[in-house]
Protein backbone atom coordinates (compact mmCIF):
# COMPACT_ATOMS: atom_id res chain seq x y z
CA UNK A 1 0.00 0.00 0.00
CA UNK A 2 2.87 2.38 0.69
CA UNK A 3 3.79 4.28 -2.44
CA UNK A 4 6.83 6.30 -3.02
CA UNK A 5 5.53 9.78 -3.73
CA UNK A 6 6.41 12.20 -0.94
CA UNK A 7 3.32 13.73 0.58
CA UNK A 8 4.71 15.73 3.47
CA UNK A 9 8.21 16.99 3.52
CA UNK A 10 9.47 18.92 6.51
CA UNK A 11 13.00 20.17 6.54
CA UNK A 12 14.94 21.99 9.23
CA UNK A 13 11.91 23.61 10.75
CA UNK A 14 12.23 25.95 13.73
CA UNK A 15 9.23 27.42 15.50
CA UNK A 16 9.23 30.09 18.21
CA UNK A 17 6.50 31.30 20.52
CA UNK A 18 7.92 34.72 21.37
CA UNK A 19 11.21 33.71 22.92
CA UNK A 20 10.32 30.12 23.54
CA UNK A 21 11.56 27.67 20.93
CA UNK A 22 8.92 25.00 20.50
CA UNK A 23 10.50 23.23 17.52
CA UNK A 24 14.18 22.91 16.75
CA UNK A 25 15.57 21.66 13.47
CA UNK A 26 12.76 19.24 12.73
CA UNK A 27 12.94 17.23 9.53
CA UNK A 28 10.52 14.52 8.50
CA UNK A 29 9.23 12.95 5.30
CA UNK A 30 5.90 11.24 4.95
CA UNK A 31 5.08 9.33 1.80
CA UNK A 32 1.70 9.01 0.26
CA UNK A 33 -0.37 6.44 2.12
CA UNK A 34 2.11 6.27 4.99
CA UNK A 35 0.84 6.18 8.54
CA UNK A 36 2.98 8.01 11.05
CA UNK A 37 2.42 8.00 14.81
CA UNK A 38 4.09 10.73 16.84
CA UNK A 39 4.56 10.33 20.57
CA UNK A 40 6.57 11.98 23.28
CA UNK A 41 6.19 13.67 26.65
CA UNK A 42 3.90 16.58 27.24
CA UNK A 43 5.18 19.87 25.89
CA UNK A 44 7.58 18.22 23.49
CA UNK A 45 6.07 20.00 20.48
CA UNK A 46 3.91 17.27 18.95
CA UNK A 47 0.84 19.44 18.59
CA UNK A 48 2.90 22.37 17.40
CA UNK A 49 4.43 20.27 14.66
CA UNK A 50 1.21 18.97 13.18
CA UNK A 51 -0.49 22.35 13.56
CA UNK A 52 2.24 23.74 11.36
CA UNK A 53 1.24 21.22 8.69
CA UNK A 54 -2.03 22.93 7.89
CA UNK A 55 -1.07 26.45 8.84
CA UNK A 56 -2.82 26.78 12.19
CA UNK A 57 0.61 27.91 13.31
CA UNK A 58 3.43 29.07 11.11
CA UNK A 59 7.04 27.97 11.38
CA UNK A 60 9.80 30.54 11.53
CA UNK A 61 12.57 28.78 9.64
CA UNK A 62 12.96 25.81 7.32
CA UNK A 63 10.34 24.60 4.86
CA UNK A 64 7.22 22.52 4.99
CA UNK A 65 5.81 21.26 1.71
CA UNK A 66 2.53 19.37 1.73
CA UNK A 67 1.38 17.69 -1.45
CA UNK A 68 3.49 20.08 -3.44
CA UNK A 69 2.21 23.22 -1.74
CA UNK A 70 4.57 25.18 0.46
CA UNK A 71 3.03 26.17 3.78
CA UNK A 72 3.73 29.83 4.43
CA UNK A 73 1.95 32.65 6.18
CA UNK A 74 -0.33 34.54 3.79
CA UNK A 75 0.39 32.28 0.86
CA UNK A 76 -2.29 31.78 -1.74
CA UNK A 77 -2.23 28.01 -1.62
CA UNK A 78 -3.13 27.86 2.03
CA UNK A 79 -6.87 27.51 1.68
CA UNK A 80 -6.48 24.92 -1.05
CA UNK A 81 -4.02 23.10 1.16
CA UNK A 82 -6.43 23.03 4.06
CA UNK A 83 -9.00 21.41 1.87
CA UNK A 84 -6.54 18.62 1.23
CA UNK A 85 -5.53 18.20 4.85
CA UNK A 86 -8.07 17.14 7.44
CA UNK A 87 -7.47 17.73 11.11
CA UNK A 88 -9.06 15.99 14.07
CA UNK A 89 -8.62 17.73 17.39
CA UNK A 90 -8.44 16.43 20.91
CA UNK A 91 -11.45 18.59 21.81
CA UNK A 92 -13.42 17.57 18.68
CA UNK A 93 -14.24 21.22 17.86
CA UNK A 94 -17.57 20.38 16.31
CA UNK A 95 -19.81 23.35 15.57
CA UNK A 96 -22.37 23.19 18.39
CA UNK A 97 -24.98 25.33 16.65
CA UNK A 98 -25.26 23.01 13.66
CA UNK A 99 -26.68 19.51 13.43
CA UNK A 100 -24.34 16.64 12.67
CA UNK A 101 -25.38 16.69 9.05
CA UNK A 102 -24.85 20.43 8.80
CA UNK A 103 -21.45 20.05 10.45
CA UNK A 104 -20.50 17.73 7.66
CA UNK A 105 -22.04 19.65 4.78
CA UNK A 106 -21.05 23.20 5.61
CA UNK A 107 -17.45 22.74 4.46
CA UNK A 108 -18.23 21.15 1.08
CA UNK A 109 -21.09 23.57 0.44
CA UNK A 110 -19.46 26.84 1.42
CA UNK A 111 -15.85 26.11 0.60
CA UNK A 112 -16.06 23.73 -2.32
CA UNK A 113 -19.38 25.19 -3.50
CA UNK A 114 -21.02 21.88 -4.25
CA UNK A 115 -24.80 21.54 -4.11
CA UNK A 116 -26.64 20.75 -0.92
CA UNK A 117 -27.98 17.46 -2.25
CA UNK A 118 -24.58 16.23 -3.21
CA UNK A 119 -23.03 17.40 0.03
CA UNK A 120 -25.66 15.57 2.02
CA UNK A 121 -25.17 12.42 0.03
CA UNK A 122 -21.48 12.61 0.65
CA UNK A 123 -22.04 13.34 4.34
CA UNK A 124 -24.24 10.30 4.78
CA UNK A 125 -21.64 8.10 3.12
CA UNK A 126 -19.02 9.16 5.60
CA UNK A 127 -21.37 8.95 8.57
CA UNK A 128 -21.94 5.37 7.48
CA UNK A 129 -18.23 4.84 7.39
CA UNK A 130 -17.85 6.00 11.02
CA UNK A 131 -20.86 3.88 12.01
CA UNK A 132 -23.29 6.58 13.13
CA UNK A 133 -25.63 7.23 10.21
CA UNK A 134 -28.59 7.43 12.61
CA UNK A 135 -27.26 10.50 14.40
CA UNK A 136 -27.41 12.85 11.42
CA UNK A 137 -30.09 15.16 12.76
CA UNK A 138 -28.90 15.51 16.34
CA UNK A 139 -26.79 18.32 17.70
CA UNK A 140 -23.23 17.64 18.86
CA UNK A 141 -24.14 18.19 22.52
CA UNK A 142 -26.55 15.28 22.32
CA UNK A 143 -23.80 12.83 21.37
CA UNK A 144 -21.32 11.01 23.56
CA UNK A 145 -17.66 11.97 23.33
CA UNK A 146 -16.77 8.97 21.23
CA UNK A 147 -19.55 9.70 18.80
CA UNK A 148 -18.53 13.35 18.61
CA UNK A 149 -14.99 12.43 17.76
CA UNK A 150 -16.23 10.12 15.01
CA UNK A 151 -18.27 12.98 13.59
CA UNK A 152 -15.14 15.12 13.64
CA UNK A 153 -13.35 12.47 11.61
CA UNK A 154 -16.24 12.29 9.17
CA UNK A 155 -16.21 16.07 8.85
CA UNK A 156 -12.62 15.96 7.68
CA UNK A 157 -13.31 13.08 5.34
CA UNK A 158 -16.17 15.02 3.78
CA UNK A 159 -13.67 17.50 2.45
CA UNK A 160 -12.23 14.45 0.64
CA UNK A 161 -8.86 15.10 2.10
CA UNK A 162 -5.94 12.93 1.18
CA UNK A 163 -4.12 13.60 4.40
CA UNK A 164 -5.49 13.32 7.92
CA UNK A 165 -3.87 14.79 10.99
CA UNK A 166 -4.96 13.58 14.41
CA UNK A 167 -3.97 15.41 17.60
CA UNK A 168 -4.54 13.06 20.52
CA UNK A 169 -8.00 12.22 19.25
CA UNK A 170 -8.83 9.87 22.11
CA UNK A 171 -7.37 11.56 25.15
CA UNK A 172 -10.52 13.52 26.02
CA UNK A 173 -12.60 10.35 25.99
CA UNK A 174 -13.81 7.91 28.62
CA UNK A 175 -12.03 4.55 28.68
CA UNK A 176 -14.92 2.76 27.05
CA UNK A 177 -15.31 5.26 24.23
CA UNK A 178 -11.69 5.25 23.24
CA UNK A 179 -12.08 1.93 21.49
CA UNK A 180 -14.97 3.13 19.34
CA UNK A 181 -12.78 5.85 17.91
CA UNK A 182 -9.69 3.74 17.59
CA UNK A 183 -11.65 1.17 15.62
CA UNK A 184 -12.73 3.81 13.15
CA UNK A 185 -9.17 5.02 12.83
CA UNK A 186 -7.87 1.53 12.18
CA UNK A 187 -10.45 1.11 9.45
CA UNK A 188 -9.47 4.42 7.97
CA UNK A 189 -5.83 3.42 7.95
CA UNK A 190 -6.66 0.53 5.70
CA UNK A 191 -8.06 2.81 2.99
CA UNK A 192 -4.67 4.13 2.01
CA UNK A 193 -5.13 7.67 3.28
CA UNK A 194 -2.00 9.41 4.53
CA UNK A 195 -2.21 9.72 8.33
CA UNK A 196 -0.17 11.59 10.91
CA UNK A 197 -1.36 10.85 14.36
CA UNK A 198 -0.26 12.15 17.75
CA UNK A 199 -1.34 9.59 20.31
CA UNK A 200 -0.26 7.61 23.33
CA UNK A 201 -2.40 4.65 22.41
CA UNK A 202 0.38 2.20 21.85
CA UNK A 203 -1.95 -0.64 20.97
CA UNK A 204 -3.20 1.41 18.06
CA UNK A 205 0.29 2.45 17.08
CA UNK A 206 1.45 -1.15 16.98
CA UNK A 207 -1.50 -2.07 14.80
CA UNK A 208 -1.36 0.62 12.13
CA UNK A 209 1.84 2.66 12.21
CA UNK A 210 4.33 2.40 9.38
CA UNK A 211 6.65 4.77 11.21
CA UNK A 212 6.95 5.84 14.85
CA UNK A 213 8.32 9.26 15.67
CA UNK A 214 9.46 10.15 19.17
CA UNK A 215 9.79 13.82 20.08
CA UNK A 216 11.34 15.45 23.08
CA UNK A 217 11.90 19.12 23.84
CA UNK A 218 11.08 20.29 20.33
CA UNK A 219 13.29 17.81 18.53
CA UNK A 220 12.68 14.51 16.81
CA UNK A 221 14.74 12.11 18.84
CA UNK A 222 13.94 8.87 17.12
CA UNK A 223 12.24 7.71 13.93
CA UNK A 224 11.80 4.01 13.50
CA UNK A 225 9.40 1.35 12.29
CA UNK A 226 7.20 0.12 15.13
CA UNK A 227 8.82 -3.29 15.50
CA UNK A 228 12.11 -1.71 16.29
CA UNK A 229 10.64 1.20 18.22
CA UNK A 230 8.80 -0.90 20.78
CA UNK A 231 11.32 -3.64 21.25
CA UNK A 232 14.60 -1.86 20.95
CA UNK A 233 14.48 1.94 20.93
CA UNK A 234 17.82 3.63 20.51
CA UNK A 235 17.62 6.55 22.92
CA UNK A 236 17.48 6.26 26.71
CA UNK A 237 14.77 8.90 26.97
CA UNK A 238 12.54 6.98 24.66
CA UNK A 239 13.01 3.78 26.62
CA UNK A 240 12.05 5.49 29.84
CA UNK A 241 9.01 7.09 28.26
CA UNK A 242 7.82 3.79 26.85
CA UNK A 243 8.25 2.00 30.14
CA UNK A 244 6.09 4.60 31.87
CA UNK A 245 3.40 4.64 29.24
CA UNK A 246 3.13 0.89 29.02
CA UNK A 247 3.38 0.43 32.77
CA UNK A 248 -0.05 1.21 34.10
Amino acid at each position, binding site marked *: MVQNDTMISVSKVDKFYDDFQALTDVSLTVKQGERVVICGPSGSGKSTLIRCF*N*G*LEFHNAGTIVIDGIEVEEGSKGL*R*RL*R*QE*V*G*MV*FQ*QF*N*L*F*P*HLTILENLT*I*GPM*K*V*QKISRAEAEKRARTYLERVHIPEQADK*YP*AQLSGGQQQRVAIA*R*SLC*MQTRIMLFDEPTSALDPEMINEVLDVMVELASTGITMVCVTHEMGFARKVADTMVFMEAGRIVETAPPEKFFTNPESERCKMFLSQILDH
Partner: protein
Amino acid sequence: MAARAPNGAKKFRAFMNSVPVSVALYLLVIGMIIWSAYSGAQSMGYNWQWYRMPQYFYTLTDDGFQWGEIMIGLVKTIQLSVTAFFFATVLGLLVALLRLSGLVIGTAVAVAFLEFVRNMPILVLLYLFYYVLGPVFKLDRYTASVMCLAVFHAALISEIFRAGINAVPKGQWEGATSIGMSKGQAYRYIVLPQSVKFMLPPMTGEVVHLIKSSAIVSVIAVAELTTIGRNLISDTYMSFEIWFTIAAVYMVVTLALSIGVSRLEKKYAVQT
Protein backbone atom coordinates in the same frame (compact mmCIF):
# COMPACT_ATOMS: atom_id res chain seq x y z
CA MET B 1 -38.62 6.08 49.56
CA ALA B 2 -38.66 5.88 53.33
CA ALA B 3 -39.14 9.36 54.69
CA ARG B 4 -36.70 10.19 57.44
CA ALA B 5 -37.73 12.40 60.32
CA PRO B 6 -36.15 15.74 59.53
CA ASN B 7 -34.75 17.65 62.47
CA GLY B 8 -36.20 20.95 63.62
CA ALA B 9 -33.85 23.32 61.86
CA LYS B 10 -34.27 21.61 58.55
CA LYS B 11 -38.04 21.56 58.95
CA PHE B 12 -38.07 25.28 59.67
CA ARG B 13 -35.90 26.07 56.70
CA ALA B 14 -38.02 23.95 54.41
CA PHE B 15 -41.08 25.74 55.72
CA MET B 16 -39.58 29.17 55.12
CA ASN B 17 -38.51 28.14 51.64
CA SER B 18 -41.85 26.80 50.57
CA VAL B 19 -43.37 28.90 47.86
CA PRO B 20 -46.57 30.11 49.60
CA VAL B 21 -44.70 31.22 52.72
CA SER B 22 -42.05 33.00 50.67
CA VAL B 23 -44.59 34.79 48.54
CA ALA B 24 -46.59 35.83 51.58
CA LEU B 25 -43.49 37.15 53.30
CA TYR B 26 -42.47 38.94 50.15
CA LEU B 27 -45.86 40.59 49.77
CA LEU B 28 -45.73 41.63 53.40
CA VAL B 29 -42.40 43.39 52.98
CA ILE B 30 -43.42 45.07 49.74
CA GLY B 31 -46.67 46.13 51.34
CA MET B 32 -44.80 47.69 54.23
CA ILE B 33 -42.59 49.65 51.88
CA ILE B 34 -45.53 50.94 49.87
CA TRP B 35 -47.40 51.83 53.01
CA SER B 36 -44.49 53.79 54.43
CA ALA B 37 -44.03 55.63 51.15
CA TYR B 38 -47.71 56.40 51.11
CA SER B 39 -47.78 57.67 54.67
CA GLY B 40 -44.66 59.66 53.93
CA ALA B 41 -46.42 61.37 51.07
CA GLN B 42 -49.43 61.86 53.28
CA SER B 43 -47.40 63.58 55.97
CA MET B 44 -46.01 65.90 53.32
CA GLY B 45 -49.52 67.20 52.83
CA TYR B 46 -49.45 66.70 49.10
CA ASN B 47 -52.80 66.72 47.35
CA TRP B 48 -52.91 63.74 45.07
CA GLN B 49 -54.72 64.36 41.83
CA TRP B 50 -54.62 60.98 40.17
CA TYR B 51 -58.03 61.62 38.68
CA ARG B 52 -56.44 64.10 36.30
CA MET B 53 -54.11 61.52 34.79
CA PRO B 54 -56.22 59.41 32.36
CA GLN B 55 -56.67 62.28 29.92
CA TYR B 56 -52.97 62.09 29.16
CA PHE B 57 -53.35 58.51 27.97
CA TYR B 58 -56.47 58.89 25.87
CA THR B 59 -59.46 61.17 25.49
CA LEU B 60 -62.98 60.44 24.32
CA THR B 61 -64.43 63.60 22.89
CA ASP B 62 -67.02 64.33 20.26
CA ASP B 63 -64.30 63.77 17.68
CA GLY B 64 -64.01 60.23 18.92
CA PHE B 65 -61.14 58.39 20.52
CA GLN B 66 -57.76 60.10 20.66
CA TRP B 67 -54.47 59.05 22.11
CA GLY B 68 -53.19 61.30 24.86
CA GLU B 69 -49.84 63.01 25.05
CA ILE B 70 -48.15 60.29 27.06
CA MET B 71 -49.01 57.65 24.48
CA ILE B 72 -47.76 59.88 21.69
CA GLY B 73 -44.55 60.39 23.63
CA LEU B 74 -44.23 56.67 24.18
CA VAL B 75 -44.52 56.00 20.47
CA LYS B 76 -41.83 58.59 19.85
CA THR B 77 -39.59 57.00 22.47
CA ILE B 78 -39.99 53.61 20.87
CA GLN B 79 -39.40 54.98 17.40
CA LEU B 80 -36.31 56.81 18.58
CA SER B 81 -34.97 53.77 20.41
CA VAL B 82 -35.56 51.34 17.60
CA THR B 83 -33.90 53.54 15.01
CA ALA B 84 -31.00 54.33 17.26
CA PHE B 85 -30.57 50.69 18.22
CA PHE B 86 -30.45 49.64 14.62
CA PHE B 87 -27.68 52.09 13.81
CA ALA B 88 -25.90 51.38 17.06
CA THR B 89 -25.80 47.67 16.24
CA VAL B 90 -24.43 48.22 12.77
CA LEU B 91 -21.85 50.70 13.97
CA GLY B 92 -21.04 48.54 16.99
CA LEU B 93 -20.39 45.49 14.85
CA LEU B 94 -18.17 47.56 12.62
CA VAL B 95 -16.17 48.88 15.56
CA ALA B 96 -15.86 45.41 17.09
CA LEU B 97 -14.62 43.92 13.84
CA LEU B 98 -12.18 46.78 13.41
CA ARG B 99 -10.95 46.21 16.92
CA LEU B 100 -10.40 42.51 16.24
CA SER B 101 -9.15 43.02 12.70
CA GLY B 102 -5.48 43.39 13.46
CA LEU B 103 -5.37 46.44 11.18
CA VAL B 104 -3.01 48.97 12.69
CA ILE B 105 -5.02 52.11 12.05
CA GLY B 106 -8.31 50.26 12.23
CA THR B 107 -7.63 49.08 15.75
CA ALA B 108 -6.36 52.48 16.82
CA VAL B 109 -9.48 54.18 15.48
CA ALA B 110 -11.74 51.68 17.20
CA VAL B 111 -9.97 52.12 20.52
CA ALA B 112 -9.97 55.91 20.26
CA PHE B 113 -13.66 55.93 19.44
CA LEU B 114 -14.42 53.64 22.33
CA GLU B 115 -12.42 55.58 24.88
CA PHE B 116 -13.80 58.90 23.76
CA VAL B 117 -17.42 57.86 23.91
CA ARG B 118 -17.11 55.79 27.04
CA ASN B 119 -15.61 58.55 29.08
CA MET B 120 -18.03 61.23 28.09
CA PRO B 121 -21.35 61.88 29.77
CA ILE B 122 -24.09 61.31 27.23
CA LEU B 123 -25.49 64.75 27.95
CA VAL B 124 -22.29 66.34 26.75
CA LEU B 125 -22.25 64.11 23.70
CA LEU B 126 -25.76 65.24 22.90
CA TYR B 127 -24.77 68.89 23.09
CA LEU B 128 -21.89 68.10 20.79
CA PHE B 129 -24.14 66.47 18.22
CA TYR B 130 -26.92 68.99 18.37
CA TYR B 131 -25.15 72.29 18.78
CA VAL B 132 -21.83 71.63 17.10
CA LEU B 133 -22.34 68.96 14.46
CA GLY B 134 -25.99 69.89 13.97
CA PRO B 135 -25.35 73.19 12.16
CA VAL B 136 -22.37 71.74 10.29
CA PHE B 137 -24.28 68.82 8.77
CA LYS B 138 -27.73 70.41 8.89
CA LEU B 139 -29.14 67.86 11.30
CA ASP B 140 -32.55 68.40 12.78
CA ARG B 141 -33.09 67.63 16.44
CA TYR B 142 -34.49 64.17 15.83
CA THR B 143 -31.64 63.06 13.59
CA ALA B 144 -29.11 64.49 16.00
CA SER B 145 -30.74 62.56 18.85
CA VAL B 146 -30.72 59.32 16.91
CA MET B 147 -27.09 59.80 15.97
CA CYS B 148 -26.04 60.68 19.47
CA LEU B 149 -27.78 57.66 20.96
CA ALA B 150 -26.48 55.41 18.20
CA VAL B 151 -22.89 56.53 18.67
CA PHE B 152 -23.04 56.31 22.45
CA HIS B 153 -24.48 52.82 22.42
CA ALA B 154 -22.37 51.64 19.52
CA ALA B 155 -19.40 51.91 21.84
CA LEU B 156 -21.08 49.74 24.45
CA ILE B 157 -22.45 47.32 21.89
CA SER B 158 -19.08 46.92 20.23
CA GLU B 159 -17.76 45.67 23.56
CA ILE B 160 -20.60 43.18 23.74
CA PHE B 161 -19.81 41.96 20.26
CA ARG B 162 -16.16 41.69 21.06
CA ALA B 163 -16.80 39.74 24.24
CA GLY B 164 -19.27 37.51 22.41
CA ILE B 165 -16.84 36.78 19.61
CA ASN B 166 -14.03 36.13 22.06
CA ALA B 167 -16.26 33.82 24.07
CA VAL B 168 -16.46 31.43 21.14
CA PRO B 169 -13.73 28.88 21.90
CA LYS B 170 -10.58 29.18 19.88
CA GLY B 171 -11.09 25.61 18.75
CA GLN B 172 -14.04 26.72 16.65
CA TRP B 173 -11.82 29.04 14.63
CA GLU B 174 -9.37 26.21 14.17
CA GLY B 175 -12.13 23.82 13.22
CA ALA B 176 -13.37 26.27 10.62
CA THR B 177 -9.95 27.06 9.16
CA SER B 178 -8.96 23.44 9.03
CA ILE B 179 -11.84 22.66 6.70
CA GLY B 180 -10.58 25.44 4.48
CA MET B 181 -12.89 28.30 5.38
CA SER B 182 -11.71 31.84 4.86
CA LYS B 183 -11.77 34.33 7.73
CA GLY B 184 -14.98 35.84 6.44
CA GLN B 185 -16.66 32.48 6.10
CA ALA B 186 -15.55 31.48 9.58
CA TYR B 187 -17.15 34.64 10.98
CA ARG B 188 -20.26 34.28 8.95
CA TYR B 189 -21.06 30.59 9.40
CA ILE B 190 -19.31 29.54 12.57
CA VAL B 191 -18.35 32.33 14.95
CA LEU B 192 -21.10 34.92 14.72
CA PRO B 193 -23.99 32.43 14.94
CA GLN B 194 -22.46 30.99 18.08
CA SER B 195 -21.65 34.31 19.65
CA VAL B 196 -25.34 35.26 19.45
CA LYS B 197 -25.91 33.03 22.43
CA PHE B 198 -23.40 34.99 24.49
CA MET B 199 -24.59 38.33 23.22
CA LEU B 200 -28.31 37.99 23.63
CA PRO B 201 -28.56 38.71 27.37
CA PRO B 202 -26.23 41.73 27.39
CA MET B 203 -27.90 43.01 24.22
CA THR B 204 -31.27 42.96 25.94
CA GLY B 205 -29.71 44.90 28.76
CA GLU B 206 -28.38 47.33 26.20
CA VAL B 207 -31.78 47.88 24.59
CA VAL B 208 -33.24 48.62 28.00
CA HIS B 209 -30.30 50.93 28.64
CA LEU B 210 -30.91 52.67 25.33
CA ILE B 211 -34.59 53.19 26.03
CA LYS B 212 -33.63 54.71 29.34
CA SER B 213 -30.91 56.91 27.99
CA SER B 214 -33.21 58.15 25.25
CA ALA B 215 -34.79 60.16 28.06
CA ILE B 216 -31.82 62.49 27.83
CA VAL B 217 -32.99 64.00 24.55
CA SER B 218 -35.57 65.93 26.53
CA VAL B 219 -32.89 68.58 26.91
CA ILE B 220 -33.10 69.37 23.21
CA ALA B 221 -36.89 69.24 23.22
CA VAL B 222 -37.50 66.10 21.20
CA ALA B 223 -41.03 65.24 22.17
CA GLU B 224 -40.50 61.77 23.64
CA LEU B 225 -41.88 60.34 26.83
CA THR B 226 -39.69 62.15 29.33
CA THR B 227 -39.99 65.46 27.54
CA ILE B 228 -43.76 65.09 27.54
CA GLY B 229 -43.63 64.25 31.22
CA ARG B 230 -41.52 67.26 32.06
CA ASN B 231 -43.65 69.56 29.95
CA LEU B 232 -46.79 68.27 31.61
CA ILE B 233 -45.24 68.85 34.99
CA SER B 234 -44.37 72.39 34.09
CA ASP B 235 -47.95 72.86 32.97
CA THR B 236 -49.79 71.16 35.77
CA TYR B 237 -47.31 70.81 38.63
CA MET B 238 -48.56 67.34 39.44
CA SER B 239 -44.94 66.33 39.76
CA PHE B 240 -45.36 63.09 41.62
CA GLU B 241 -48.30 61.70 39.74
CA ILE B 242 -46.61 62.33 36.45
CA TRP B 243 -43.20 61.03 37.46
CA PHE B 244 -44.74 57.86 38.85
CA THR B 245 -46.78 57.37 35.72
CA ILE B 246 -43.82 57.92 33.45
CA ALA B 247 -41.75 55.51 35.53
CA ALA B 248 -44.51 52.92 35.26
CA VAL B 249 -44.73 53.33 31.49
CA TYR B 250 -40.99 52.84 31.14
CA MET B 251 -41.14 49.83 33.45
CA VAL B 252 -43.89 48.22 31.43
CA VAL B 253 -41.96 48.62 28.21
CA THR B 254 -38.59 47.49 29.51
CA LEU B 255 -39.92 44.62 31.58
CA ALA B 256 -42.00 43.37 28.68
CA LEU B 257 -38.85 43.47 26.62
CA SER B 258 -36.73 41.60 29.17
CA ILE B 259 -39.37 38.94 29.69
CA GLY B 260 -39.93 38.54 25.97
CA VAL B 261 -36.26 38.07 25.30
CA SER B 262 -35.74 35.61 28.13
CA ARG B 263 -38.61 33.55 26.68
CA LEU B 264 -36.91 33.67 23.33
CA GLU B 265 -33.65 32.66 24.93
CA LYS B 266 -35.20 29.63 26.54
CA LYS B 267 -36.67 28.53 23.26
CA TYR B 268 -33.32 29.02 21.63
CA ALA B 269 -31.56 27.07 24.38
CA VAL B 270 -33.86 24.07 23.98
CA GLN B 271 -33.20 24.00 20.29
CA THR B 272 -29.48 23.43 20.48
